[in-house]
């Protein structure tokens, strides 16, 4: 052993090394950065804005219906991406219709945001998952704004409702959010899950066989003729009107959408989902989505999957849109929470007697 004086110095060196290691770990893990937004922080603020935790349910888009069918590729997508979805042929698809909001029991008339989660089961165990919405734009452009908007939407404990002044303050400083709200106010609301167009929201990158990268967005155009809900009478809609209508309609025959890929023009924003790509664009129709089965969440095969938009096959990659990694991380946090809570009876399954 070294003499006592040196022993103390050497113990000090050991302590410094260990403390430094702890500090590096703490820094990387974000313990020293309270402002860093984790997927869990997004789930937290969604829970706060929901007013409570609904155990077992998604923290957003809590109310849903499972669907299944297939994708019939026409082969045109092969020129854009080497994804195994695109060669002419058929790929099995499962999915989930949902309405926005974190309350699984909310009435359909109040939840005006329609969405569709999709899982394309590609050969070799590859998957392509999508979480697509009936709006071509999103309400905010980045995760920090998303958290701030949700914070502004947290119900005031006194009134049980969000403070309009806080919401107004957010919208005033975020013209893109105002633009989204204007869009929601003026755009007709699809009367059914079946006759809505669903948009990729974010931009993505397609990579073809030659390795060429192209920025794209895509949307699914319904074959069912469009009809709009009367926005003045939303409150009068039966509780599960949209979901019931979808189940009834799909029982009569398959629902179909054409998948259309839009290629970015030079100068199009690929990093901002609040900005539409306007003007003429090259569009390529790559196939048809056919949904021919609907099942409640309790009986179906969609509730226990995470429709993470970054689960992508070869030939498709994320763009520089900051919402994409945030959606991926937040969906994952929501999935962790709801799976450990275990499934709880959902409104549609209860109504269907399951």
């Amino acid at each position: 052993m070294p003499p006592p004086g040196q022993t103390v110095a050497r113990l000090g060196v050991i302590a410094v090394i260990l403390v430094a290691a702890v500090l590096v770990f703490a820094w990387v893990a974000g313990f020293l950065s309270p402002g860093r937004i984790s997927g869990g922080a997004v789930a937290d603020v969604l829970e706060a804005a929901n007013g409570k935790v609904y155990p077992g349910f998604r923290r957003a888009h809590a109310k849903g219906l499972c669907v299944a069918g297939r994708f019939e590729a026409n082969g045109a997508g092969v020129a854009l991406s080497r994804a195994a979805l695109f060669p002419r042929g058929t790929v099995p698809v499962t999915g989930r219709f949902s309405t926005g909001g974190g309350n699984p029991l909310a009435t359909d008339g109040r939840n005006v945001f329609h969405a569709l989660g999709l899982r394309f089961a590609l050969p070799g165990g590859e998957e392509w998952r999508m979480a697509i919405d009936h709006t071509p734009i999103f309400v905010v452009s980045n995760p920090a704004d998303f958290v701030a908007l949700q914070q502004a939407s947290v119900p005031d404990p006194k009134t049980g409702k969000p403070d309009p002044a806080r919401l107004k303050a957010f919208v005033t400083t975020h013209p893109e959010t105002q633009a989204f709200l204007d869009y929601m106010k003026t755009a007709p609301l699809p009367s059914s899950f079946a006759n809505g167009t669903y948009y990729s929201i974010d931009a993505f990158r397609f990579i073809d066989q030659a390795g060429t990268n192209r920025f794209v967005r895509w949307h699914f155009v319904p074959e069912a003729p469009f009809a709009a809900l009367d926005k003045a009478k939303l409150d009068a809609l039966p509780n599960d009107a949209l979901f019931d209508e979808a189940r009834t309609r799909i029982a009569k025959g398959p629902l179909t959408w054409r998948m259309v890929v839009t290629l970015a023009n030079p100068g199009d924003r690929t990093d901002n989902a609040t900005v539409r790509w306007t003007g003429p664009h090259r569009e390529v129709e790559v196939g048809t989505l056919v949904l021919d089965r609907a099942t409640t969440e309790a009986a179906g095969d969609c509730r226990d999957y995470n429709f993470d938009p970054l689960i992508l096959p070869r030939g498709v990659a994320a763009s520089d849109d900051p919402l994409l990694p945030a959606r991926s991380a937040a969906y994952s946090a929501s999935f962790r929470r709801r799976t450990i809570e275990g499934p709880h009876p959902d409104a549609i399954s209860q109504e269907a007697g399951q």
Partner: protein
Amino acid sequence: MTRNHLFALPARVLHWTMAVLILAMLLIGAGMVSTTTARYPELLAWHRPIGIVILLLALIRVVVRLTHRPPPLPSDLPPLMAAGAKGSHYLFYGLMLAMPLIGWGMQSAGGYPVLLWKGAVLPPILAHEPLLYAWLRYAHGLLGYAFFLLILGHVGAALFHGLIRRDGVLESMTGAATPHLDEPSVVDPLPADPAFPPAYD
């Protein structure tokens, strides 16, 4: 004296390779769940293949451990420290094997495709079972922190052997010669100690 008692070369190579990989892995894991930036998918894309590499190296390491006798601990090591040394090494082997398997298993149970890299999907090792996913995911995070604490203890103990006891245990893994008065070692940046070699030598 233990100066000629080194770990076998394959054991030392595996130790230091895995030390780098496991530390990187713990930092990648802790870092990726802390953020919603593009670092999240980037780190996640590294996390899975490195985890599989660690699993393969850990399996090789078990074979090396079973076929190569490690150098004995110093005979004068207090029984508590000797027990800690032995016990912690069982924990290391357990975690090196368990963490990648839990990761692979939880992704399987969560219904996720287990991507090594784009286009290379590993088969699931567990059926799709959300509650099992939930508990494995919880265990994966908790054991990650436990692994880091174990490494802190390991590094602290190694430095205690190397700087305080100077009994050749640290050098048995660094492969360096046991430090002498006249040849300061890279592992001993402090002034040489006139009391060395220790009385028990």
